[in-house]
């Protein structure tokens, strides 16, 4: 645990006040060092993830290391473009002025990460925050103890530890952190309940927040789709990280006619992926801690659904078997909170309208999935439901492209990031206008006012809906000519 974390936070603030993080060269150097920190220690990062979550090397590398690596490279390649002033269009009123937006850092940002992808979810926003010129207080989740420790050990060896300190706090200090300290921006990844608490605490300081929360992500399977490929993709997505992923498909909505066939294919796929005893598979993860295992055990023990696969729980080894449940009533224990575990519910529906209705009765999810060949059906679902993001005919994939903003809506969160969107999220767009107007235009607005001045103002400033085309063009040319003549007249005097 970090002692004197308040001193550390003050240190970051003071560092920001010196202006050093505003220097683009400084930011570039820090990102290059961060890149080294990631690449030079790949084995150690994987080791920590294995200890925290029994995460196998493949998942650790593909889902965490590669993501972070690519984000840093993307930032380094584009930093010079991102930080440039953005020139904006001018109008008649500002024709001779300079109109642009400066991209500025907010100041000292707090980034709090979750325990399920403790490496990736911590560094991904940090990269954008550094690129945008902020100082960052980096707070990994204390539940992922080995990864948090490794951040504390390694980051100060590579990046400026005054500007980007790592703090690890216990539960009590964590709860008080936002309440008792003022930040210029807060980025939080975690559960909805804590998200609410963070926003309320931030409100006292009017600190803007981005909240990446969670939800129960629905997955619609239409009878027109190829059930085998759907089963494989969904199985892969559901059991990543032993189900502890915010964008996993949580519950299936499909017609009764295909349900059993889907469940068959799904069971077959579990066997293919993890063998007949998934506990022995090196590719299957573990739950983060006993508290979470007990939470999942309680849901399974509620008996409010028919278990057709799995259901075994071993609290000691934090193992929960890949589980599938059918005949699940909407008010059952399985359908309350986000599962965040390796359990898939399959709910039967009569038709797509019922599926849409079930989805819309619930909180807006972080992700929505639909497997179907029929484009019209897909578009109907997309336009009648809302979610943070969507993948059609697969799961999880909208998380991957840098060009797509990733974030939630409603209880699944607010704000978005990834790629340039992270840079934008951590930047204050400061509008600037360098006035170059000739004074006679400005003087129209000064008192004492007159009807004549008012008519001139209206003529210069007021837009019109019509006409378009040649008459409007001639009119605007005429106005410009008038202005030109007036300028010449004044200048000659």
């Amino acid at each position, binding site marked *: 645990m970090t002692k004197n974390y308040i001193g550390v936070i003050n240190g970051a603030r003071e560092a920001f006040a*010196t*202006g050093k993080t*505003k*220097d683009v060269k400084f930011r570039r150097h820090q990102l290059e060092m961060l890149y080294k920190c990631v690449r030079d220690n790949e084995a150690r990062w994987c080791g920590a993830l294995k200890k925290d979550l029994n995460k196998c090397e*493949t998942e650790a*590398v*593909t889902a965490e290391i*590669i993501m972070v690596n690519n984000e840093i490279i993307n930032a380094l390649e584009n930093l010079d473009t991102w930080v440039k002033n953005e020139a904006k269009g*001018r*109008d008649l*009123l500002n024709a001779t002025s300079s*109109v642009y937006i400066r991209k500025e850092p907010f100041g000292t940002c707090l980034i709090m990460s979750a325990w399920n992808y403790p490496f990736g979810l911590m560094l991904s926003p940090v990269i954008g925050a550094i690129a945008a010129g902020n100082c960052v207080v980096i707070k990994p989740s204390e539940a992922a103890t080995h990864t948090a420790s490794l951040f504390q050990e390694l980051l100060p060896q590579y990046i400026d530890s005054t500007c980007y300190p790592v703090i690890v706090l216990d539960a009590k200090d964590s709860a008080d952190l936002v309440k008792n300290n003022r930040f210029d921006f807060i980025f939080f990844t975690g559960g909805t309940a804590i998200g609410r608490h963070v*926003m309320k605490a931030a*409100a*006292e300081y*009017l600190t*803007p927040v981005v909240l990446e929360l969670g939800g129960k992500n629905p997955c619609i399977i239409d009878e027109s789709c190829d059930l085998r*490929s759907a089963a*494989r993709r969904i199985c*892969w997505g559901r059991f990543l990280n032993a189900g502890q992923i915010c964008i996993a498909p949580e519950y299936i909505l499909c017609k009764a006619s295909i349900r059993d066939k889907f469940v068959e294919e799904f069971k077959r796929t579990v066997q293919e*992926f993890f*063998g007949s005893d998934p506990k022995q*598979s*090196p590719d299957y993860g573990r739950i983060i801690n006993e508290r979470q295992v007990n939470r999942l055990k309680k849901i399974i023990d509620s008996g409010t659904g028919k278990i057709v696969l799995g259901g075994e729980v071993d609290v000691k080894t934090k193992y929960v078997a890949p589980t599938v449940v059918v005949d699940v009533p909407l008010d059952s224990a399985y359908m309350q909170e986000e599962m965040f575990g390796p359990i898939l519910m399959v709910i039967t529906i009569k038709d797509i309208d019922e599926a849409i209705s079930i989805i819309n009765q619930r909180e807006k999810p972080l992700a929505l999935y639909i497997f179907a060949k029929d484009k019209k059906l897909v578009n109907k679902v*997309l336009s*009648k439901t809302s979610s943070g993001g*969507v*993948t059609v*005919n*697969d799961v999880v*994939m909208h998380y*991957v*492209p840098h*060009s*797509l903003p990733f974030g939630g*809506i*409603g209880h699944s*969160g*607010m704000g*978005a990031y990834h790629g340039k969107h992270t840079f934008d999220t951590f930047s*204050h*767009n*400061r*509008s600037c*206008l*360098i*006035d*170059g*107007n000739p*004074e006679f235009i400005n*003087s129209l*607005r*000064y*008192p004492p006012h007159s009807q004549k001045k*008012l008519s001139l103002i209206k003529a210069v*400033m*007021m*837009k*019109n*809906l019509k006409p378009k085309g040649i008459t409007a063009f001639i009119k605007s040319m005429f106005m410009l000519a008038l202005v030109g003549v007036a300028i010449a007249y004044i200048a000659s005097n």
Partner: protein
Amino acid sequence: MNTAQQLLFNTRAAFKSGITLPVEWRIEQLNRLLDLLNENENALLDALHKDLRKPKLESIETELIVVKNEAINAIKNVQTWSKPTYPSKAFVQMIDSVYILKEPYGVVLVMSAWNYPIQIIFSQLVGIIASGNCAIIKPSELSPVTSELMSKLIPQYLDKECFRVYLGGIPETTVLLKERFDMIMYTGSSMVGKIVMKAAAEHLTPVILELGGKSPVYVHKDSDLKLVAKRVVWGKFLNLGQTCTAPDYILCHNNVVDSLIDELRKTVEEYFGSDPKESPDLARIVNARNFKRIESIMSATPKEKLAVGGETDESALYIVLNAFAESFKYIFFDVLLYFIFGKMTLSTAPTVYKDIQLGDPIMEGEIFGPILPVLAVNGADEAVEIINSQEKPLALYIFAKSDKVGCNVSYLKPPPPFLLSCTSSGGVTVNDVLMHAASHNLPFGGVGNYGFILFFYHYLDIIQHLDSCSPGNSGMGRYHGKYTFDALTHEKPVVYRGQNFESLLSARYPPYSEKNLSMVS
């Protein structure tokens, strides 16, 4: 269900019906909004005059034209704005279709301010309509005539189910804030901004807060003082100083401070005559409470520091009746008062103070009135120190001929122009005031304690946004023009894949092997 809950329930039902989704419907509503403005110009001007004694030119320039231009801009562009966008794809997405859908949030609560009552509500409404949202509008009870008028006109012209007006004071607003909205847009003071954000946090509702600040003006020694005076006096006394981006205080280079004060005095007389109370071009303070607040700032400032103005006028009768009305908190009484007494009272002459120091009471909170303190500084560095010791303002104004008016930040080479790099603010105008908020294409909003979720609005007009603000932070979020549309839109990313190419994808499935790993990497 109480009234607030019923209202929300009905508006949400209207949103769920999907009526706001087709672009044609949005364009039709925007046209109706334009009709509302065009057909009721006199009534709107009259209401503004009754609430704030706002001069006709100001009302047209800073409220009506601004909103009409926003509406026209939206009508012309909403088709483009609402189309899905197609961002670049990564190599792994080459077989996929990748796009971003523009989705409305749902029901937006608009809580507006009293200083630019028409402009704020209608500009935001333009963005709300364009983005396909529904709205519950709560105009300020401190501008009762305008609010009452809006509650009549909006249902006459716009879809009654989708856009509703809810009148009320503090108790009614408190009840309203308990309910769950999909987005809240609040314009007003930082103090109430905090209350709004806390209430929103209960439901995890995103907020856009346009608050206020003490916007500083730095005048460098090379400036054309006559020009500075003309622009600052105009910007400061617009709406009698009740503008959130009004120049709050001046930091003037020592060498020229006395000449500047002379120019300020001359300009005040030029604009408002020798007896400003008689000038038709000055608005009035909105109510007794604010009048008293400004009066107390003036009494706390020593008489020797008075350079220009200083007179106040308050009708005793108005104060007595106003107190009576406030205890009932009914709009009706306020309206009655206005009809009887008009807004000819509660005036404070344009006032300038010199030799002000950082610790003086006038430098404590946002002034939001017609008093202008002038502090003398040694140069840009001292100005930066003073500016940075305060909360980040909504706007920063710099008057300088040379673009080398930088600050001493040795890390940055070459030294950046102006004070921009060493300070932060919502926006900046150099060599003028308010104008950055006038540009259509620039985002308008605050930062830090002064702003949250900028939203941009699109104006061709000289003055814009102009919200009520009071001491505190400038807000979060930004708007104007397309930026309003963007702030009120959820960008929903979609990756649309086929069901073939399964063999390509199977590299990611367990059981994992070294081969899988190297292929994916």
